[in-house]
């Protein structure tokens, strides 16, 4: 603000310098965002700090001596997927391995959190009509964008400081290198927040903005699959490869993401200052008009679930099938290139496969099947979303009974994995079959993938059971069950937990290193049925949420 008081007429005739009002209310908004998201921010910080710390402890336990690390480096160089995603291992010191392993993971965590956070406070609020409420107050044109960037930068800075402290004090690594690693990750996180802000300005709906921003993140973090090494410096994942925080540190590097951040924020300013409320450069595909009459099938809760979410399942199925075909094809081609390496043979021995291609195929299939747990849980949580947003009451006030309403949504949720898993099996089998000429792979792969269905249904069962008993806990409980099970996969692979304990989690019996038995999927199918029955019975007896 200029300190010199100007008489009113002069001000009206207008000295058009920077308008201080463009940022009016930034402080208030920053406090509001922090207050509204304090738990989210705490979780975001905790995960971002815990990740490198976890890697430091687990890798130290796994690779205690110089010799083991040398062996590890050799095995890593032999693994084409690791090499493509993480790049070459820069040095064999333990801290070198830890930051090499943590870099991409950290980028994904801070990047995803930051861009979702940015869109949540901008386009999502605008979609919900809350932006209008706020913009009606004394709030400047650039206030919201500025406030979001400030909070995102502050959270990332806190992450940087805590990561440096944890690695330096907890693991005993050099403070300078730890700080540089933390700052680089933090600068990238802030950059993705700014990317999210630009996406939110351009896309006309929060969903569209999210897909765009996540696609940018994937391109920035995992380009190694498609991009040759000499072009990697264009991407954030490549910046991490030249960083080398503990050996030949490049201290200028965090300035690169910061410069990109500044450019993105200016772009977001430029768009937000020019566009109308609710408008965007990229129109939402769904549009605002549609059929005047309901289609034939839109006459039941199941039909409603299909009408609302069927498109998503189709998208998931197409995406997973396409990726599966690619993965099946690529797996087969690895045989020729890496089949002779020692490290590869050792892996084959553990998995009980004859060729490298077979081994890779089972691993990829397993990972894809794990992913299917996510859309399953999302589907299973829809009854809660419908009820808590007040859309259940009008239907339950019709002759639709509670159980019919719930089973309409649940049936759709259970059908989703029953479609997605065969899609994965068919895709991987087809890709592999095309590359090797072994058509029987299609049937075998479909069977393997379908075997996983009871595991995903168990997560749906947990979601529905908790929804029936304590609806407000359904969302955290369902996702916690998935996260814990996924964590157990890592613990089992690190041999921290035993086979029996691992089999007690739904992800256990399908693991490629666990020889499959029929009893486990049957048991999980029964467990899922029991959980669904409990949830249904409890839902029929309780009050509707008000």
């Amino acid at each position: 603000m200029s300190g010199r008081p100007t008489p009113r007429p002069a001000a009206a005739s207008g000295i058009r310098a920077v308008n201080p009002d463009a940022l009016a209310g930034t402080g208030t908004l920053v406090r509001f965002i922090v207050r509204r998201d304090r738990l989210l921010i705490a979780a975001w910080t905790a995960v971002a700090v815990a990740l490198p710390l976890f890697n430091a402890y687990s890798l130290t336990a796994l690779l205690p001596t110089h010799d083991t690390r040398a062996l590890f480096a050799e095995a890593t160089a032999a693994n084409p997927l690791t090499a493509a995603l993480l790049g070459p291992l820069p040095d064999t010191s333990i801290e070198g391995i830890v930051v090499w392993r943590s870099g991409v993971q950290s980028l994904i965590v801070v990047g995803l959190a930051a861009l979702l956070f940015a869109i949540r406070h901008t386009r999502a609020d605008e979609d919900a009509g809350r932006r209008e409420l706020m913009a009606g107050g004394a709030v400047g044109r650039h206030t919201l964008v500025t406030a979001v960037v400030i909070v995102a930068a502050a959270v990332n800075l806190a992450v940087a400081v805590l990561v440096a402290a944890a690695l330096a004090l907890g693991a005993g690594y050099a403070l300078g290198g730890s700080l540089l690693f933390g700052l680089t990750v933090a600068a990238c996180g802030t950059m993705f927040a700014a990317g999210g802000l630009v996406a939110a300005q351009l896309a006309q709906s929060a969903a569209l903005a999210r897909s765009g921003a996540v696609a940018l993140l994937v391109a920035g973090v995992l380009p190694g699959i498609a991009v040759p090494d000499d072009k990697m410096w264009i991407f954030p994942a490549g910046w991490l490869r030249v960083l080398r925080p503990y050996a030949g540190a490049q201290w200028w590097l965090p300035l690169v993401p910061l410069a990109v951040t500044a450019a993105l924020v200016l772009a977001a300013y430029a768009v937000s200052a020019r566009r109308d409320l609710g408008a965007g450069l990229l129109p939402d595909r769904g549009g605002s008009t549609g059929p005047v009459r309901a289609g034939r099938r839109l006459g039941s809760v199941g039909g409603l679930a299909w009408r609302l979410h069927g498109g998503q399942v189709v998208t998931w199925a197409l995406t997973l099938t396409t990726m599966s075909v690619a993965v099946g094809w690529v797996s087969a081609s690895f045989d020729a290139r890496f089949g002779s390496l020692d490290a590869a043979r050792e892996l084959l021995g553990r998995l009980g496969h004859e060729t490298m291609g077979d081994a890779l195929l089972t691993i990829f299939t397993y990972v894809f099947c794990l992913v299917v747990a996510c859309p399953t849980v999302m589907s299973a949580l829809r009854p809660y979303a419908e009820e808590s947003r007040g859309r259940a009451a009008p239907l339950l006030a019709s002759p639709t009974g509670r159980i019919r309403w719930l089973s309409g949504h649940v049936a759709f949720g259970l059908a989703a994995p029953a479609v997605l898993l065969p899609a994965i099996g068919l895709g991987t089998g087809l890709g592999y079959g095309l590359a090797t000429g072994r058509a029987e792979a299609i049937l075998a792969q479909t069977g393997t993938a379908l075997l996983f269905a009871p595991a995903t249904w168990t997560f749906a069962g947990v979601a529905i059971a908790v929804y029936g008993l304590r609806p407000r806990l359904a969302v955290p409980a369902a996702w916690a069950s998935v996260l814990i099970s996924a964590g157990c996969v890592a613990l089992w692979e690190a041999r921290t937990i035993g086979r029996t304990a691992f089999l007690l989690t739904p992800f256990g019996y399908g693991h490629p290193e666990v020889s499959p038995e029929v009893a486990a999927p049957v048991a999980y199918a029964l467990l899922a049925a029991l959980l669904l029955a409990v949830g249904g019975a409890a839902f029929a007896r309780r009050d509707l949420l008000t």
Partner: protein
Amino acid sequence: MESVISATGLVKTFGRTRALDGLDLRVAAGEIHGYLGPNGAGKTTTLRVLLGLLRADAGEARLLDGDPWRDAVRLHRRLAYVPGDVTLWDDLTGGETIDLLGRLHGAFDTRRRDELIDRFQLDPGKKARVYSKGNRQKVVLIAALASEAELLLLDEPSSGLDPLMEAEFRDCLAERRAQGTTILLSSHILAEVEALCDRVSIVRAGRVVETGTLAELRHLTWTSITARLERPPEGLAAVAGLHDLEVRGTSVSCRAETGHVGEVLHRLGAYGLQDLTAQPATLEELFLRHYRQPGNDAPVSSGTAGTP
């Protein structure tokens, strides 16, 4: 008369809040029953209990010929409901939503649907997320009114409607009453209730504190009288049943207790009555009487309810 809704001593608590606190409600067949009360008085909770969406902690409720909790599905075939807080599916158009709700109800008249869409001037091809509040309200109103139902439960149904649509809505309700439909109309738009309702219940802090026809309710209250006389009156204050007397020269305003109007008029006549207006209490006065009492946080003592 036969009761379509009868509730006795309903209690419903949410944590420490007593949303319903011994609520009694009776709605007779074929009437439009106004259910009045400010926000938070328990109107919506009552409707949700009557729909079997909530289970009462104590008391008994009968709806048509069944128990609202146990016989929910069977009873819902015979009624239609308009919720107070309308949330629709963002991606469904208004037309799709109306059809969905109608098909789930079962007995749904598509000709009437088209007629109502016309009457309420709704664009059925727009997605729900771009509708204004009034248009969202129209969607659920049309779905409810196009359903064959012998009972309509309406929770603040006209909120967000413009005056033209509000008039259209009143016509629709009057037509339904002519066809014999029973309607429970929860509202705080007093003019609407006054124009439509045969009987009224006033709810306060989870209890019905007054119930009856408008005439009966007015019977309990005083008539406002203003008069211009030929000469200044004297000694009027002593007249029994006369309150709030204000005399300004030859102008007099006062309120007369039920049963004392004749005597008041007789006494005024003695001073040469030139001009007179007498009006019964408006619903607003009846309503405010229950909410402007000192210390109205506490439940009203049972003595004020229904006793002449």
